[in-house]
């Protein structure tokens, strides 16, 4: 199951109400508005907890999202590009988060760097349609995935620390 801290984080993200996909025009706007609000809140929470771990922005329609996420291991910060599309069937279908930089480096990943989420994620998401949004997907999907996979990958030497990215971030 999802660990204690994740649950705590999750509960502090406001839930969404509008059930609408990108094709639903006005309702999608409402949805997008709620997505943003949830994300803002999530980021604020993270900042307050000194646990900021990603940057995210979308295109004008709010259907393509991209940004960065990072993980600190042994006092070193490892940073990865993040991108994903809002599927047409959203929010019934969860967005498929992808880390293209890690494509082919780990088994827990689909082609194109889409991460394999835990077994728990999908049923949890399905149960919470339409209340979960992008912020939830981030907290529930990518966060734990990074926490599990990155130290393992570093251990195996698949990924190495890159000074530059850190400096760029700083």
């Amino acid at each position, binding site marked *: 199951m999802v660990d204690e801290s994740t649950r705590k984080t999750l509960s502090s993200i406001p839930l969404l109400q509008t059930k609408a996909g990108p094709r639903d*025009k*006005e309702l999608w*706007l*409402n949805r*997008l*508005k709620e997505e*943003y*609000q949830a*994300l*803002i809140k999530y*980021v*604020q929470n*993270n*900042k*307050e*907890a*000194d*646990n*900021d771990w990603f*940057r*995210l*922005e*979308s295109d004008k329609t*709010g259907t393509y999202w991209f940004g960065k996420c990072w993980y600190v291991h042994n006092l070193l910060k490892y940073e990865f590009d993040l991108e994903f599309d809002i599927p047409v069937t959203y929010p019934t279908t969860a967005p498929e988060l992808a880390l293209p930089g890690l494509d082919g480096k780990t088994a827990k990943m689909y082609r194109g760097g889409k991460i394999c989420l835990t077994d728990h994620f999908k049923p949890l998401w399905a149960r919470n349609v339409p209340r979960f949004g992008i912020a939830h997907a981030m907290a529930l999907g990518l966060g734990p995935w990074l926490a599990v996979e990155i130290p393992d990958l570093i251990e195996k030497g698949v990924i190495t620390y890159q000074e530059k990215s850190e400096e760029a971030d700083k």
Partner: protein
Amino acid sequence: MAPSTDWEEIKRLAADFQKAQLSSTAQRLSERNCIEIVTKLIELKLIDVIFTTDGKEYLTSQHLIREIKDELYVHGGRINTVDLAKELNVDLSQICANITEIIKGREVQLVSGYLIAHYYLEKIAREINEKLQLQGQISVGELTLQYDLPAELLQHSVLEKYLGKFIFGKQDVSEPRIFYTEEYIARTKAKIRGALMGLLKPTPIAVIISHCNLTDRLFLSLFDQLKAPGVLTGRQAGALYLPSCYTKSQNDWVMSFYKQNNYLEYDALSRLGISDPKGYVKRLFPNEDLTFLSTCVIGAQIKVQLETALEECISSRSYLDVISLLPSVLSDQDIENVLDALLKNSSRSTILFDNTVFSNHYIENLKQACMPMTQKNAEAVVKSGKYQQFCFEKQMSKATELAPAVHVDHKAERREERRRKAASGKGGGGTQGRETKTKTVKKHARSKQAAHDSDSDDGHNVSKKLQTQLEIVSVEDVENIIKEILENEGLEDLLNRIAEYLQGSLNQTALTIAKETADKLLQDASQNRKQTHVSAQDKINILVNDMKLYEKGLKLLPQDQQASFIKYLLKSLGGDVLGEFCKYAANQCNLSVQVDTLTVEQRNKIINDLTDEFTKPVLALNATLSEQNMELFYQAVDVCLTEFGMILKKIDKKKDKLLILNHREKLISELESCDDPALCLHLAVLAIFTILSQNMLHASGRQVNIIIAFLKSLLKEEDYAKLQYCHELVGKYLTTSDDEEKAEIEDKLKDELSTLKNMVNEIKKYK
């Protein structure tokens, strides 16, 4: 337009989002950082702190000590270090490290993982006291279990330390781990005293203890202080308590029983719970003269009683039933033992049957009562010949047993002796003196034989065998006689025993009597034999003499007629001679001959039964009887006579005449008294022949006519005619079957008879 405004709003929100993302994160130390910092500080030994087990808290050791003390206090002065570690969330090793600091102060001690404060010990001391007051008794072991503390600690730091301060009781002197209250001791004592008082019979301590719910040790230690009315047989748990009242009543019972009955039964004593009856009795009556038997002890009084009764019994010539005088519990063997000791002095005058002592006189009386029967039986046995047979069999068996050769020798010796005697008889020429001599020898030999037969010293074992073999007096006989006497005395159960006893001696007596009788009989027999020998010899002499005379007479008759006369003579008188020989031989061979005159069959039978030495001559003699030759007969007779040790007397001519005369007179006198016509004629003819020829004639009735024919020449005509006539009449008389005619002839004959008789007389006179 609503949508445009909405898009504006979206843009604005996206900008807000970016702004929120780009705003600097709050620079605050997160938990992670703190831990990292503190770890760094500890590494640098700048601070001295202790982690809690979850690592979320740090504390200093001073704080830890305070916390431990607080915790100890909260737990009432006792706490496990492990519990402490959990409670304080501090590693056990940290606590252990700090505990040394705490126990320095003496007020707290560490006992097997427990921190124990002095006030805790005080508290449990109070608790223990409460419990002690409640229970009366308490043991360290119990407390150890209850408080889960080492016995040592409880013993020294609690019980002994606070005894008298908080704990009011008494330490057991012999067992320092047990504590009592005074009341408890008093109560227990009372309990034990009560139990002991109440007991009337020996009881195992274990029973008392379990009943009073005590411990062995306590019971035993208190028992000594109690002055209990009784004693313990031992100090072990298996010992018995013997109440003195029990011992006393036991002694009283034994005493009184002994006083009353003068004996004590072991069984009875062991029933009273005395394990060593003999020793006990010895202890109880050290001065008594006691006799220890297998099942009981008897006192002197009984013995004295018995002795006096026995004396009385002997003097009064009666019997004594010992059972009536002895205690009924005595076993047969005991009675026997007692009697053995008792009868040692007077065994000569008493006889013991089963448990009844009889004076010899009494038995003697019984025996006397049986004597007539014994006498009678003995005589009967001798008379029936059983005794002799028995003796003979005994001898036979003895002979075969000892040496068969002796038997043969003995027999041979007898034969030899006989032959010698015969030879001497023959050689001696038959004088009287010689004859007597042989007789004495014979007698001597025979008496010797008899003595040998029943000699008592030549076979004691045989005489013993004799007892078992020949039972003249049976037990039943004796029983029948003494039954009545004994039944009157109520002794019928001893009937068989006494009868058996008497039967032995009576049988002995009977055997003696039988022997005497048999001896007497044997003597009589030998006497008889002597006489028989003489008489047989005389008879044979007479017969042979007669035969010679008759032979002489018949020689007068015509030659052709003689044969039939010889035949008749041999058949009649020769048969008599043989009969005499047979009788004598039978007598010699111990064959009984009841009849006086023997038939031919009887004779033959005897001859067959005779012993070899007699059979041969007698058989030869028998053969001559049918030979019709007088010479052969005489020779055979001679052989017989020598064989039998007899002598034929010489024929005296004068005597012969006398004999003939006697014969004639006898014939005449017979004729006188005779009535039968045939016999009359027969006699008359014989008489006439004798008178006329001066010779005797032995003839049968058939031969009468031959004699008459012979007399024709010697008689007067008329006489001859008369005889002839008579003969005819007699012939008719004997042959006729008509009664009338017979009577007629008889009448005629009667007339003739008188004339016949007269004629005989006349002839006699005339002569």
